[in-house]
């Protein structure tokens, strides 16, 4: 029987930058425990600059917990995190202006209009020429028809686009997206993915994406980190994972890992 740790070590790692600039995200020995409950255990990975990396795993695998620790919202039990070269959470105030985040689990004030919400965030991020920036985002994300409507009165698709506008307001170098297309119809989800691709192509930002949509991951991600029960169990490019598991789509790879059906060498689990 092959050793899981050896297989993981043999899996292709995320490419390190050649320019000498620190990686966008560097995580070493990261753990989070709530008493007896282990949410994340000894996690280590690197996300190079200008890459889109997906964080995959079943519910409760530790994706949101990991993101929360990367953002400084949650204190790790142990381990180190460096974001854009800064040690977290100590250096969070140096890097937070250069990153942004969106999640379906976090909202904007419901009674404020879309425009008011974006104005507040443009001020919080000290965005130069906020009017022009908001106008550009409104045009790019098709928000113009409801800029003066309260956020709480928008449809799920409209809210997701507004949350993405908020996440892009400071044109972040590092964008953390937790399920950016959850509960959206295929058309709206496709538009959001198109916006993200265009943004990444234009700005060369680094994107860390947590998603349950395997089609989305195949389309957007250069590299995939597979989590299970708080541990990193495999990683590689979507093409590499498909080849190693002998599958045609990432959903099958996901199920192989989630259900222990098949090992990374393509053999069936005992």
């Amino acid at each position, binding site marked *: 029987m092959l050793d899981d740790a050896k297989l993981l070590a043999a899996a292709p790692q995320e490419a390190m930058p050649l320019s000498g600039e620190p990686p966008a995200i560097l995580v070493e020995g990261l753990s989070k425990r709530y008493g007896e409950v282990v949410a994340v255990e000894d996690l280590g990975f690197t996300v190079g600059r200008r890459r889109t990396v997906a964080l995959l795993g079943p519910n409760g695998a530790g994706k949101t917990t990991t993101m929360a620790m990367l953002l400084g*919202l*949650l204190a790790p039990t142990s381990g180190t995190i460096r974001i854009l070269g800064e040690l977290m959470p100590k250096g969070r105030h140096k890097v*937070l202006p*250069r990153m942004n985040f969106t*999640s379906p689990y976090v909202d904007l*004030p419901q009674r*404020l209009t879309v425009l008011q919400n974006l*104005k507040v965030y443009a001020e919080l991020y000290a965005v130069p020429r906020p009017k022009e920036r908001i106008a550009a985002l409104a045009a790019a994300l098709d928000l113009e028809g409801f800029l003066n409507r309260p956020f709480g009165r928008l449809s799920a698709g409209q809210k997701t686009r507004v949350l993405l506008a908020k996440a892009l307001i400071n*044109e972040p170098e590092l964008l953390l997206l937790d399920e950016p297309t959850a509960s959206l119809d295929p058309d709206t989800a496709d538009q959001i993915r198109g916006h993200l691709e265009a943004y990444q192509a234009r700005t060369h930002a680094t994107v860390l994406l947590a998603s349950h949509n395997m089609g989305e991951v195949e389309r957007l991600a250069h590299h995939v980190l597979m989590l299970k029960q708080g541990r990193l169990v495999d990683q590689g490019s979507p093409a590499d994972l498909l080849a190693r598991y002998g599958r045609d789509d990432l959903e099958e790879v996901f199920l192989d890992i989630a259900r222990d059906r098949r090992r990374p060498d393509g053999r069936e689990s005992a």
Partner: protein
Amino acid sequence: MSLAAGIEFGPSLRRIRAMLLRHLYLLLGSWPRLLDLVYWPTVQMILWGFITQFLVGRSSWVAQASGVFLSAVLLWDTLFRGQLGVSLCFLEELYARHLGHLFVSPLRPAELVLANFTVSFIRVLIGVGGASLLAVPIFHFSLIGALGWALIPFFAVMMLFGWAIGLIIAGLVLRLGLGAENLAWAAIFFIQPFSAVYYPIATLPEAVRWFAWMLPSAPVFEGMRAILVENRFDAGLFGYALLILALWLIAAAVVFILLFQSARRRGLLLQSGE
């Protein structure tokens, strides 16, 4: 390169202004919210105005200082509304499931607190200021006329004490979630009997007077009565109120920081909401 401005050290006025803007949009966009700010202080002022009118012919003490109840109720409302203003700012973020976005933005917790203090100050100016102005035509009572320049230090102590209590409640709400929501409305009434708002501290049973002296509000109300009844400003009493206030402010800051750190350890900043 992101569009955000360079790294700053210390509080940023722009970020404080952003949070102020967030609450002013909410407040000015809703006339029921504005009305609510003035409604309760005005109702209290009218109630105590009529009580004063009733008692003034029956009590020589009230006749001697007819503004004693109206001054007391308006100063008490400064404390209550000051505390409520701070607590409600935090509750608004919890109701909106918004804290996660705020705490991953460059906004620092101290800036959020300063912005909430400013919002609280504006709410008190509208609410208590409005009720004080209405007292002039209704009862021919002017708070400034009654207390003179001493109104400013009394107002400041009550406001700062309200902020200290509001900060402790905000920390509890961050740590315990909306289950602690009722504290925002009810907690301050625990100290009201010991604050000696409408009667001297000597009226309290001797066994609990020590507690009254642990509150900066009690010496302020004693000082207020010294002005209205004896026509003198008791500097010693006011100095004592400042000392106790300083201790409360330090304790509130420490409690808030500890509760905030605990909330961050437990992942409550992201999961906040109903």
